[in-house]
Every structure is written in C-alpha cells, then in structure tokens.
C-alpha cells in the first residue's frame, strides 16, 4: 500500500497546536479538516484532529498505522435526543434544568429564543451523553457540567472536559477526542469519538 501524506496542519490561533506531517498508509484522502480543542483540568492542552478517510478501492478499509498495526477509535459514543422531551423538562423544571446540566456559557450560547434554545440545549445534552459513552464514564459518576460544549470561532463544536471527568480521562491517558452535532426536526444528535494519532505529533520546525 502506498503512503499518503496528509500535509501540515498549521497553527491558527491558540489553543491550536502544531501537528506534524501525518502518514497513513493505504488510504486515499477524501477530505481533511482540522479542528483543535483544549481541555482544562491538569493544565493540559489536547489537540483534536478530525479527518475523513476513504478506503483504498477494494480494501476492507481497516485503518493501519505506518508500522502496519491496526488502530481504531478507542471510544465512541452517540446520543439522540427528542426535542419535545427537552421542552417538557424546561417546562417542568425551568432554570433548575438548565443550571443542573449546563455551564453558564452553554446556557448563554443556547440563547433566549425558545425554539432555538431547545435545539441547542438538546444538542448539548446529547453531546454530554455521547461523551459519557465514549469515555466510559457511566459508572464513574460525573457532573454533566464537567463535559462542556463550546464553539470555536469558525462555529465548530468542541468538547471541553473539566473537574473530576478531566482527572479520570487524564488517568486513563485519554487526550484526544472529536465531537459532532446535528439536529433536524424533532431530534438532535451528537457523536463523540476518542481518537489516537497514527504517529506522534512532531515539534514545529
């Protein structure tokens, strides 16, 4: 299989990091996008890569590291939320629902317009549940506010992890993850994946 060179992902603004050249064997690169996020708690900055890979024609599409060892996303979580349920929870519990589950910034980002607010809170709740699944935190017991959805300047969502959840991830060596959100009609959905780079990040020249 021929190596494919994804190229340099350049530093934009803090907290983005330099990521050196990546070589992934056996893939035709269809689309590459780079996002970066940091997570607080312990003073670490994690770089998160989001890239889409097409498999080589005719192959089974198993991702391979340069040394030929297979690697997979090591954690994956998804959650689907029914928007009317969120609206009902807001009706039943009011601001207590918001304050218990969401950070002040998340509540701010959701805005005040009722329909949009429900959509955004629902997507953020889905993100927290997806993260709990991806990170394997269901039996750890974490505060939903420790898993915070933020928006980069370009609008991409990122997951910031705080407090006890961050400590658990650090102790498990989990440092990189990706988040995606969507909503349509009466539903919002979120996906979180723990990702591992095929090669270590190299220092900028």
């Amino acid at each position: 299989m021929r190596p494919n060179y994804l190229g340099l992902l350049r530093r934009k603004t803090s907290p983005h990091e330099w990521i050196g050249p990546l070589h992934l064997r056996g893939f035709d690169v269809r689309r590459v996008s780079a996002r970066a996020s940091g997570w607080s708690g312990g003073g670490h900055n994690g770089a998160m890569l989001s890239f889409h890979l097409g498999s080589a024609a005719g192959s089974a599409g198993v991702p391979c590291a340069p040394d030929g060892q297979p690697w997979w996303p090591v954690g994956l979580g998804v959650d689907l939320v029914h928007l009317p349920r969120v609206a009902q929870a807001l009706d039943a519990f009011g601001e207590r629902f918001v304050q218990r589950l969401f950070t002040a910034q998340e509540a701010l980002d959701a805005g005040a317009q009722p329909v949009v607010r429900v959509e955004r809170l629902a997507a953020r709740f889905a993100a927290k549940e997806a993260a709990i699944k991806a990170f394997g935190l269901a039996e750890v017991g974490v505060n939903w506010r420790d898993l915070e959805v933020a928006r980069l300047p370009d609008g991409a969502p990122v997951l910031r992890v705080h407090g006890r959840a961050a400590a658990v991830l650090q102790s498990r060596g989990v440092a990189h993850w990706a988040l995606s959100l969507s909503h349509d009609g009466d539903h919002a959905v979120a996906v979180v994946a723990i990702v591992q780079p095929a090669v270590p990040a190299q220092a900028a020249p």
Partner: protein
Amino acid sequence: MSASSPLFDAVRDALAAHGRLSVDARALSPDTDLYESGLTSQCSVNVMLALEGRFDIEFPDHLLTRSTFSSVARIADALAQSGAA
C-alpha cells in the same frame, strides 16, 4: 428499607411522572431493572431533577451513575445517601 417506605414511594411517584416507563411505575418492585422497563438516560435525568426538587437535595456527582438509576431500591438508597429524609 421496606418495599413500601416513603423513599420508595417517592421514587415510584417520580418514575410515574417522568420516567415514561413501559410498565406501571407505581407497581414496580424495588429491584426491577428500570432500563429494561423503558427508562432512557434523558428520562432518568428528569426523574433525578424531580427527586432533587422534592427533597431539596442534590445527588453528589459520584452517585450520578447509570446503575444508581437502575432500580427503585438503588435510587432510594442514593436519596438516603444524599440526605433525603
């Protein structure tokens, strides 16, 4: 804790109001698996909020696990640990 203690009844009330179970919440035995009875994570949050409001407590983070909300008895035990009277 007996099966008809006030905490058990309060849990059944919250499940009836917010759990959206496929079974009659008020007839739940203490150890019936709630997820097998249709409880979703979203509804478990609402059940939690209802109980926190009723008893004016907050479950500590370490009790916010999937297994805490897996049965009436487990939820009632968590309430007791959280200071609900």
